[in-house]
């Protein structure tokens, strides 16, 4: 049993699917601040222009509360629903709060594996693992994995991705 399998076993309970790093919700919140601010600014500007200062203040206040609530709550839910698993023949991902997605990338289709780390991720020693196939449509990014776990996962995927045929036809 390798380290990744052992790790999977320790998180098991959902058919071998594992969660992301516990810091993921916080990182999503921090990364989402600029977007939330911009959207809030645009909404306030529209309300100001359409309803006048007094009503605008009330509406903006309500919207701000709702926005802050969603911005704080959504990453937690997102983290709860984000799972990944190294299957028999593919990396499998499940994610989405409102729109649930279940994706799979066969090992033998993996062309390239990128490991990316932003400044906030460095603080928590987590990385984003990005798989590339010949399809530009493939849903193959695992965000916010512990760096050590990502290294193991990358190694395992690279071994599994070794070509078995001379010409893959694309």
């Amino acid at each position, binding site marked *: 049993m390798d380290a990744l399998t052992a790790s999977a076993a320790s998180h098991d309970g959902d058919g071998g699917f594992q969660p992301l790093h516990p810091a993921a919700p916080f990182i999503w919140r921090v990364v989402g601040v600029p977007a939330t601010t911009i959207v809030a600014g645009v909404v306030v500007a529209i309300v100001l222009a359409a309803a006048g200062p007094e009503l605008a203040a009330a509406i903006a206040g309500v919207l701000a509360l709702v926005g802050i609530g969603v911005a704080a709550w959504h990453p937690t839910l997102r983290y709860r629903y984000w799972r990944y698993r190294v299957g028999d023949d593919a990396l499998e991902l499940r994610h989405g709060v409102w729109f649930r997605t279940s994706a799979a990338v066969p090992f033998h289709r993996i062309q390239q594996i990128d490991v990316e780390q932003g400044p906030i991720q460095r603080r928590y020693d987590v990385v984003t693992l990005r798989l590339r196939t010949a*399809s530009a449509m493939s849903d193959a990014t695992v965000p916010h994995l512990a760096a050590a776990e990502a290294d193991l996962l990358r190694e395992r995927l690279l071994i599994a991705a070794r070509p078995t045929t001379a010409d893959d036809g694309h």
Partner: protein
Amino acid sequence: MPEHPAITTTSGTTGISGISGISGISGIASEPSRLHPMSPVIDLLVWLPRMWPVFLVAVAQSWGIVAVATGVVVLLATRVVAWWRTTYAFDGAELTVAGGVWNRTVRRVPVARLQQVEVVRKLRHQALGVSRLRLQLANAGSDDGDVLLDVLSVADAEALKSALEQFRREAVAGVSSATAIPPPPAHELLRLDPKLLALGGVTGASLLLLPAALVAALQVLDDVGLDDDAGEVAQRLPVVGFAVAAVILSFVIAATLAALRNHRFRLSRRSADLVIERGLLEQRATTVPIARVQLVRLHRNVLRRWLGLASVDIATSGRSTSDGAGSADDSVPVARWDDAIAVSLVALGGREVVAADRAAASVAVDRLVRRRLLIAVALTGWLPILDSGARGVVAVAVVALLVVVGLVARASGRSRRHGIGPDVVVVEAGALAWSRALVPIDRVQSWRTSQSPFQRRHDLHHVHIHLSGRRHVVVRDATGAQAAAVVAAVRRTEHVEIAR
């Protein structure tokens, strides 16, 4: 050192050289070659029309003529330098293209990775007796995927195309040039006569041109005076005639464009390749390796269905450009239904195709009808409120529209079917514009199922099947069992690929 002898071309003189021992190609040249000397002139013909605003401003000035002349000379000089700096060479394993005036770029293209090879002769190429060679690679939709040798002599382009195709076949088959067997002559699969091409144009693109022509004609009617005295029939006749003429003209233009674009269309099979030749003003000869085919689609609208016609797209994994250049989209613009089926089977290279025998569930059809009606109501439901004068008429029109939308949506829902075979997944959809996608399982790159909150209530899923590039096929609103069956089928991609 390359295993093959160096292969380069001597543009405008003797065609390709350097492939000793390969049928029909002889001579050896050791140095990379330049494009045809007419290359700067062709570049100038492309650049000058784009600069007309500058020229328009310049010629209005007293110094204009001198400035324009200087600009043209400078432009020509830069293109000459660019031509001088651009070279290409083919060593039997890789095509090497070097270029760039300030930033030098050397690009090596492994011949085994070629998706399509295409010789194009636009009007300017025909006028100057040259050709363009385009090589398409698998590049997942990136912009720099195609390799373009824009100006080669006709002989060089044909010879290089032949050499690339031959070495690609050898590379894929794993045989050496010494033992290579010359490819058999092309076997014609389909030839389209001008009458069928014109019919294809009228029943295809013209369906989009027609509404535009009608809107334009109605605008003219409105401007000329529908509000005037309704008794002036004589005055209206020319306007009505104009409207009819606009519609007829749109049909004529569509038919003519289709006939010109696909003039002398011929689809043939040569060895393991499909060869598509067509065009009058812009002549194209495209080679599509059957082993590279990622997806085959058949299309037909209501009119074509009634006439027993269809079109076929044969897609490889290269980039699909907006103008269709470099892609085999719209490979067969129009064909009789039986011919279209036959072409699709050839393009699938002997894979077993099954019928789309799994229909959409009734709950999925109902969901589609509800969605379409909801959108239609949101867009038009408020119209009767606006105009109090004609509220009744508008309300009747809106209700009629909603009925049509509902009927079309139901027909669309019932047209959604899919089938799962040992080699191919078949997905059909569309009422007014119907299509059948034939997905070779061994070409599947990845897959994804998605489910919205509304779909979750009925256990419905979209299944997205991803192929090379940006191509993908979606099985919409499949039930849980149907989605699981499709996923189980595409999951066999590696096993099917190895078995083949």
